[in-house]
């Protein structure tokens, strides 16, 4: 009897171990051509780990974070894209032509494109989309300068603006430029869950907080694309187990912003590739300072805070030395960057400024807001210690994301951690820096530092209305100089640790061409970047 029982237990154990062995059965590749070492191969399946789910996939009603762009852009495409040099290029649009004053843009729609539901893409559809975006509370502020959208001919839409806006096409590379078919416009709620577009992939399945699966669009308008048969986006919120899942073979690629992942997988060059965002795509890690409330309404205090911060030590201590110190909203590899004028680390200068202010107004005390995650808390505590050495008393308040954003918008803060400035064009920061968007404390202010600086605002206006690149560069040089002079924002570093890590078999991440042949921008977005999927292939 006992022998029989033992045998049964052994058999059960063997059965369970057999069932448990290995990963999920990998679907057979539908490759149409044998893998070639020299070029892309069609077929295959990619499992891609994302850090969070999207709130929905409707560009008109759902706020898009980077993960939303990852999941939605394979299905829904924008009118405009951005090339590797950071210049806008037509995508679903064939051309975008301004009038002489740049207060009208004629958008000519690329011909012979259909949505996956069979509806042709026309000027009428683009007009309806732009009007819906203009009416949406989500995007109305972005399109505030738009006064009318008119159909000039069946394939051309003219957008009329309140003022010249040379960088207007960049907006159409984002959420407001993503085009959905009339059926989705008619049922916005359904479009949130079941996205339909002109893109290289078709929506197949979505399980909230778990996965989204998209399959190849056989009628995609760009010939020969996409290469992959299927992409599964797996939602894995914990960064550590997301990386472990990559190591265990459960996914083929993941997005991350953990320094240790960048270092660890970067050292395993035979098995993984690490793709990091660069240039304008990289956001900056900063402290916003509330310039409308004491003591930070005094520019001497703001400059003292900057002098007291040793950014090199912060980077060495908390970023593993991977990031670059920031001295403005744009990194050194951007064509808009100008050098000079940012307060250097100089504790003696900081202390002198503090003593000067204290002689006038008494002790300097304020509250700095941190998010609740330990990495951010460590950074804020390190800064608190550096400020204390200069004689500034800073207390820390922990707030979750919703609370922090609300406080920033209503001015209920002294200083707060923040990440920003990843727009493709400097004009993308217009609302956040211009004095016209600074409101008194208690009111919603799209300019959260509430700095009212005429020179800065005039420079932003100049950058918005003039097409001359030299003049624009001068305008944005002034923006940087005024920010360094007035210090409404303490810049810490360029957060270029946002990365996509993939197994070496996954090819083409960040290497894609646009419809007219230009090389596209590799990766964009923060804190974890995203990229197109149409030209990714698996070399198996």
């Amino acid at each position, binding site marked *: 009897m006992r022998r029989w029982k033992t045998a049964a237990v052994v058999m059960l154990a063997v059965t369970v171990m057999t069932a448990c062995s290995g990963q999920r059965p990998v679907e057979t590749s539908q490759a149409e051509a044998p893998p070639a070492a020299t070029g892309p191969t069609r077929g295959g399946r990619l499992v891609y780990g994302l850090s969070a789910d999207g709130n929905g996939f409707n560009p008109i009603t759902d706020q898009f974070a980077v993960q939303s762009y990852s999941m939605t852009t394979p299905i829904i495409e924008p009118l405009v894209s951005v090339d590797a040099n950071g210049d806008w290029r037509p995508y679903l649009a064939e051309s975008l032509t301004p009038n002489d004053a740049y207060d009208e843009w004629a958008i000519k729609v690329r011909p012979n494109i259909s949505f996956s539901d069979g509806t042709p893409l026309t000027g009428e559809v683009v007009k309806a989309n732009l009007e819906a975006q203009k009416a949406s509370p989500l995007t109305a502020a972005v399109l505030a300068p738009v006064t009318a959208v008119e159909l000039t001919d069946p394939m051309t839409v003219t957008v009329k603006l309140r003022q010249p806006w040379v960088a207007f096409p960049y907006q159409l590379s984002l959420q407001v430029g993503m085009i959905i078919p009339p059926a989705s416009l008619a049922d916005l709620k359904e479009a949130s869950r079941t996205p339909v577009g002109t893109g290289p992939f078709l929506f197949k399945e979505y399980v*909230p907080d778990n996965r989204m699966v998209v399959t190849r669009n056989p009628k995609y308008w760009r010939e020969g694309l996409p290469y992959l048969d299927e992409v599964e986006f797996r939602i894995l919120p914990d960064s550590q187990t997301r990386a472990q899942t990559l190591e*265990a073979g459960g996914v083929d690629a993941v997005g991350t912003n953990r320094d240790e992942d960048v270092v660890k997988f970067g050292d395993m060059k035979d098995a993984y590739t690490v793709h990091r965002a660069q240039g304008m795509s990289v956001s900056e890690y900063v402290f916003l300072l509330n310039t409308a409330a004491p003591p930070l309404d005094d520019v001497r205090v703001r400059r003292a805070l900057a002098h007291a911060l040793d950014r090199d030590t912060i980077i060495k201590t908390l970023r593993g030395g991977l990031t670059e110190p920031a001295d403005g909203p744009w990194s050194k590899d951007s064509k808009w960057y100008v050098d000079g004028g940012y307060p250097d680390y100089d504790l003696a200068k900081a202390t002198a400024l503090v003593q000067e202010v204290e002689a006038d107004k008494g002790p300097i005390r304020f509250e700095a807001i941190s998010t609740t995650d330990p990495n951010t808390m460590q950074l804020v505590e390190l800064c608190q210690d550096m400020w204390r050495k200069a004689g500034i008393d800073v207390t820390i308040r922990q707030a*979750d994301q919703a609370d922090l954003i609300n406080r920033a918008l209503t001015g209920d803060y002294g200083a707060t951690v923040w990440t920003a400035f990843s727009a493709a064009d400097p004009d993308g920061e217009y609302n956040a820096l211009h004095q016209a968007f600074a409101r008194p404390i208690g009111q919603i202010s799209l300019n959260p530092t509430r700095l009212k600086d005429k020179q800065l605002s005039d420079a932003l206006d100049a950058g918005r209305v003039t097409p001359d690149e030299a003049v624009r560069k001068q305008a944005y040089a002034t923006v940087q100089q005024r920010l360094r002079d007035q210090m409404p924002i303490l810049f810490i570093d360029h957060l270029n640790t946002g990365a996509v890590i993939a197994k070496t078999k996954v090819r083409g991440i960040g290497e894609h061409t646009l419809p007219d042949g230009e090389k596209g921008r590799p990766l964009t977005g923060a804190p974890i970047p995203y990229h197109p999927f149409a030209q990714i292939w698996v070399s198996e």
Partner: protein
Amino acid sequence: MIVLHRLVRLAVVLLVVTFLSYALLNLLPGDPVTQILGMSATEESRAQLRQQLGLDQPLLVRYLDWLGGLVTGDFGESYITRMSVGAELAERLPVTLELLVAAEVVALGLAVPLGMAAARRAGQPLDQALTALSFALLSTPVFVLGVLLILVFAVTWQVLPATGWTSLTTDLGWNLTSVILPAVTLGCGQLAVYSRLLRTDLIATLQEDYITLARARGLSPRRILWRHALRPSAISLITAIGLNLGALIGGTVIIETLFGLPGIGRLIVDSIFSRDYLTVQGGVVLISVGYVAVNFTVDLVYAAVDPRIRHA
């Protein structure tokens, strides 16, 4: 009669719990409008949306409105996803239920034999080793245990998936494979508690006269343990199962995040962060009903296990 009495108590519990959670959530700074519209929306857009969502109404009016819907089975609509809260909960409930049941199976399946072995050899090396193991499990946070288990079973040995979820109806085999690590991680803390409780009660029971009599009759130690000692020693264990449900549900939040499971715990926490009041309320109702129902069942099981309670 007892069922009716329990139902009345359940209604009172639900009223108190849902009102408190609704009020507390509304006291949190920030609101769903900022979450929906983000940084770039104007004051006018925000006011318009606030009105559309009914957030401009007083708290009590909103609560009563929600309660009126609940009575008719309508949990309301999520502010963030605009999906029916009832449908969202129904989609996620099987995941959390399966995780909870699997964790309890792991905990009880190991705690009973380990507790009995420890009680039978109280004070001996095996008992001391099991005591040390219990304290080790109790003092290890679930997120540490989860990461360690993933490292061993998924990364190093590659016999189990690190993360991910497949529903029972999609693929039974893969579903069971994907629930093992989360269930073991969640169940280990309970295993320690259960085995310690059972050990303590069994040691006391084994001192009873009727056990001495059974030994005198020549019954084998195993028979005495299983047939005569286990049942009267299980009352504390059964109580702990009911009471620990709350802790277990709390644990699912971490486990679901760690292993990427689309369950109720993760939904509630995400909804708290996004100030999605109605989704949180729906989750609170579900958990409250579940908690009361499980403890009601525990009361019934008491009577089945110990006839003295039934007769009393």
